[in-house]
């Protein structure tokens, strides 16, 4: 038998597995993936040594099939075996390393004594001050907090809860879907977030599939990052929630100084979401478009203040920003949200304000100025 024979049979079974997955028959899909993995491994053995590209593609395919069959030991054995070969092309080395990483996370998750919803989300922070496996602590802490906020907001929005303007999410939301942070092997600075399965799956209203939370999170981020107003409106009909997601997405996006790119991808597939400095402009423009239109007051002048956000009192509706020329007290934060402004305290910010003739400032918008 030739490579072509074994591979064609493996293709057929893997395609059938995909159909079964679509029909939600996970067990049938797993069995088909197992058989397909065996055949693809057989194909690998039949391959002539002068076919490096086919070797790389088949190696990745066989290891991926073992992974999809959740045969993690077989998958990692094959990855390490192939990675030890000198004739493996670079693209396959990269993909097999990615597989080793995914296997590691899946094994860690099975060791934790809790269940997780499908579809963990991987984050990769790149460029600027970020090095392989290392990044400034404040940067990562900020991003992780914002990611957690977006997850909670995703759950609240899908549950039709009113937009929370102050404080943490309700205890029931925090308890229902606890986010876990998983370490990932270095490759820029990477981490992964998985959502613990709710103890009571009926926590979610009937129309919400809890398995879709991670996917929804990514959809919201993808549409926000692209400034895709039509798509975001389809996913999130409520304008206040839309504006909130855009502000949180902008907080995630780099300015280009500390880091250059945040790549967000799902372990279940689909395109990665890339956040780059240019996305901030697109997102800001969409945030402005969604702002309620105020009548033009000729006595008010628009200004931009740059400085350090020293104090926030959302209950009393003010913030204080210290710039080179002094302290600015800014009122009128009606639209501001805890989890948008909170992570900016003691950081350099850019605040758009309207100033009246008595030099009082009214808040318009705020973003990080790293």
């Amino acid at each position, binding site marked *: 038998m030739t490579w072509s024979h074994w591979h064609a049979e493996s293709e057929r079974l*893997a395609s059938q597995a995909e159909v079964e997955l679509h029909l939600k028959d996970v067990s049938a899909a797993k069995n088909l993936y197992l058989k397909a993995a065996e055949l693809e491994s057989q194909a690998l053995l039949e391959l002539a040594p002068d076919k490096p590209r*086919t070797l790389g593609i088949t190696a990745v395919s066989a290891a991926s099939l073992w992974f999809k069959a959740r045969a993690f030991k077989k998958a990692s054995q094959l990855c390490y075996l192939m990675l030890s070969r000198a004739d493996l092309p670079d693209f396959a080395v*990269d993909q097999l390393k990615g597989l080793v990483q995914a296997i590691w996370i899946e094994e860690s998750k099975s060791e934790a004594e809790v269940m997780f919803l499908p579809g963990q989300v991987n984050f990769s922070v790149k460029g600027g001050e970020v090095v392989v496996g290392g990044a400034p602590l404040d940067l990562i802490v900020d991003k992780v907090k914002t990611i957690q906020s977006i997850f909670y907001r995703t759950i609240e929005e899908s549950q039709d809860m009113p937009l929370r303007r102050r404080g943490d999410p309700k205890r029931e939301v925090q308890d229902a879907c606890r986010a876990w942070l998983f370490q990932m092997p270095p490759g820029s600075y990477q981490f992964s977030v998985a959502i613990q399965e709710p103890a009571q799956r009926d926590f979610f209203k009937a129309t919400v599939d809890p398995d879709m939370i991670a996917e929804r999170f990514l959809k919201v981020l993808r549409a926000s990052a692209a400034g895709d107003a039509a798509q975001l409106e389809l996913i999130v009909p409520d304008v206040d929630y839309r504006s909130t997601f855009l502000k949180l997405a902008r907080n995630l996006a780099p300015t280009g100084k500390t880091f250059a790119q945040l790549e967000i991808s799902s372990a279940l597939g689909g395109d990665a979401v890339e956040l780059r400095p240019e996305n901030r402009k697109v997102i800001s423009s969409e945030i402005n478009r969604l702002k309620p239109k105020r009548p033009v007051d000729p006595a008010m002048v628009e200004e931009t203040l740059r400085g350090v956000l020293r104090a926030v009192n959302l209950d009393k509706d003010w913030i204080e920003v210290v710039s080179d020329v002094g302290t600015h007290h800014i009122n009128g934060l009606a639209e501001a949200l805890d989890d948008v402004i909170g992570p900016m305290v003691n950081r350099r910010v850019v605040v758009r304000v309207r100033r009246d003739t008595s030099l009082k400032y009214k808040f318009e918008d705020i973003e990080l100025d790293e």
Partner: protein
Amino acid sequence: MSTVLRLSGLGERHPGVTNALGDAYAEAASVCLSQHHQSPIEVAAHYKKSESDCVLPWIEPTSAVLRAHSNELDATEQGAYAVSFAAVEALAGLVAVRRAETLTGADYYVAPIGTDPEDMESCLRLEVSGVGAGNETIIRARLRQKLRQTEKGRSNLPALAAVVGFRERLIAIAHMGEE
């Protein structure tokens, strides 16, 4: 005269696609298209710096098909495969000849119609993406992203990227190194 993009019978014309999967992809495409349009529609297909006017017909999805493809993300992704296969077939004379698994899905490899490759040494990898409601700017940005990711060495060379905009009625196809 407009080129017709055929979603039906993909499995019969593309050796790397099984009938069941080809039909499932075509169903997904019909769900995505019928959200915005009525069959048939005219679509603009950009390939090799030129634009072709194409006609894209589909079978209106039944309620069972709509239910089966209610996951919008999956439907967009799978529907984009169907439209991309039909487009590269009609515009470039390429068909999907092989499929190989990846961590997050599967890659399809295309070759000229009639080729029966014994291996993947000369096949082009087809990188596919779907955009539901986004406009041309979003579709072009997605194509650039796809090509950038391909060039970064994440995947194997050489490759062809196709982005399908369902509402915008636009298919953008480019070889790595273009755009």
